[in-house]
């Protein structure tokens, strides 16, 4: 059998980023900064809520960051960056007008078709609010397309609360059911305290067709899943987002692989039903 040898296609390198400009940087907490980033010529990123990008600081390296704004707000996008390593530390040193490299959007986000027309409950812990904020914004921007919408958010203490301006606005909205809690309140804290599962008491009864999103640290995840499953929500309606070492972002380099799954390709968003088959995700 004679096969044609592939012809050279004029495609760019997978690893070449788009040079994007930082429009503003807003301090969120002592360790988190919010970056507003615009692609050249105001091009939209074209992402789905739940997807991520690889951010390059040339000379330092790349790191995966989830997109924390909705595609409905298209002329720029937001990245909430916690200072944990080399690249994030250098990102924190950048300001408005500086440039970074962006590859993406990457990965699989929330399957919006599954959410439209349904009640939605989002439970976020700590930095977990960042990846779900894109979905929250999307739902609020397209509010008529969704049923009842509830958001429960927990942080360790008041100083670690993210997106404070959002929290104020969300609390005022009549078309969403929003509750926030901190594990360890300080003297000024007037709100709810306790772990995020204690907020389930504030919720109305869940319709069995509710789509639930849980994103947060592993300890929180298990207890929230128990609360949700106890309310007879099917596992395929329960969504979460996995953190792994995404490096190439395109299913090749192997770093983010968990059992048979590449988190950068099949994830980072998974249903709990899918996740159960990925044993290593819970190890």
């Amino acid at each position: 059998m004679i096969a044609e040898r592939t012809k050279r296609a004029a495609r760019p390198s997978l690893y070449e980023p788009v040079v994007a400009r930082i429009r503003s940087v807003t301090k969120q907490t002592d360790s988190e900064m919010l970056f507003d980033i615009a692609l050249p010529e105001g091009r939209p990123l074209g992402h789905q809520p739940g997807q991520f990008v690889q951010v390059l600081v040339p000379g330092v390296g790349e790191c995966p960051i989830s997109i924390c704004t909705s595609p409905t707000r298209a002329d720029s996008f937001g990245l909430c960056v916690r200072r944990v390593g080399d690249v994030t530390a250098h990102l924190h040193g950048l300001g408005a007008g500086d440039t970074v490299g962006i590859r993406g959007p990457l990965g699989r986000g929330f399957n919006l078709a599954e959410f439209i027309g349904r009640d939605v409950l989002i439970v976020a812990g700590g930095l977990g609010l960042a990846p779900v904020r894109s979905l929250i914004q999307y739902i609020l921007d397209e509010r008529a397309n969704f049923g009842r919408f509830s958001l429960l958010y927990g942080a360790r203490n008041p100083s670690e609360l993210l997106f404070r301006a959002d929290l104020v606005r969300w609390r005022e909205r009549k078309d969403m059911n929003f509750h926030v809690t901190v594990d360890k309140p300080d003297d000024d804290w007037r709100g709810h305290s306790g772990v995020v599962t204690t907020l389930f008491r504030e919720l109305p009864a869940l319709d069995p067709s509710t789509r639930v999103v849980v994103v947060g640290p592993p300890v929180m995840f298990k207890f929230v899943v128990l609360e949700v499953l106890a309310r007879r929500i099917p596992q395929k309606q329960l969504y979460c987002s996995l953190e792994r070492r995404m490096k190439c972002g395109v299913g090749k380099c192997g770093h983010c692989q968990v059992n048979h799954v590449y988190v950068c390709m099949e994830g980072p968003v998974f249903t709990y039903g899918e996740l159960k088959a990925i044993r290593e995700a819970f190890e």
Partner: protein
Amino acid sequence: MLDRVVHRTDLSALIDELARTRRIVGPVKHEDRFFYEAVDRAGRLDLDFTYCVYSPKAQLLPPKETLLTFDRTTGNFTCHPLYDERPTVLAGVHPCDLHAIKLLDHVFGAEHADEQYLSRRRHMFLIGIDCPHPCTAGVFCRDMHAHVADSGFDLMCYPLERDQAGRTVRYGVQVGTTAGQEAILYGRVGTPPTPEAEQHLARYQAEKDRAFPKAIPVDSAGLPGLLAKSYDSLLWEATARRCYSCGSCNLVCPTCYCFDIHDDGALGGNGGERVREWDGCQLRGFAEVAGPHNFRPKPGSRLRHRVFRKGKWILERTGLPGCVGCARCDRACTARISLVDMYKQLAEEV
């Protein structure tokens, strides 16, 4: 079906002809072992090689390569990807390694095409050499159905006749691509196959079939099932007690393609590069994220991960075997951890 019959000197001449516009890379003998090396003429190659210590992976996915250079100016930077488009004739690739290259082609060529890999691959002319018998003890290519290859080459050479010194003097050649066809036509090498040559090939293949024994209790199709039952086996942790986590098994493997990317800036100045380098799932820091948090800290989990990739996950994901049975991993392991042994032990457990 043969397309041509060539004498060993014809094959040499053909490679030299191809090399008028290409580099030549092929097996070269050092002491008693063979290594893929760039040479200036075909005469330096040893096409009757047993096996090359390292697979031809490095010719397509080098241990270290610059993916792009960058240049920073105040408040801005530019990137320039680099492509290696040197035409190369890779002469002397056994069926197992041809299967491995097929997998690399799939991984880097299918979804999200990797132009840095593909530019190298498109400029490579592949000459396969079939093996009449197992190249060394411990291989399990037959079990992986990788001891024969009917595609994935530009030309495939079957060693039909040997002289008294054991050197192949006549090859039956099968054409795999139009590039291969052109090389044969324009090179005007060899003669058209005779019915006698076809019979010779049939005899060769029958003998080959007898020469390659089954080495493990299941074949590539049975491995996913065997492994599915073995996820919780104690064998992983027990075997991994001997594991140095040195990654030699990954690095010598023709189908291990995992890599890392890091930045290297120049000292003083604004230039720098993003470099891709081989990585391996057996190395301790492979699944570590900033924080730091290691998602696969135990050697036993890492060993299981490698074996599942080789025997199950890659096959299920790509439809192509993730292991070609070359046993380079077994030979490279100074702790003598062996895939063949592990497969045998797992089969006894279930």
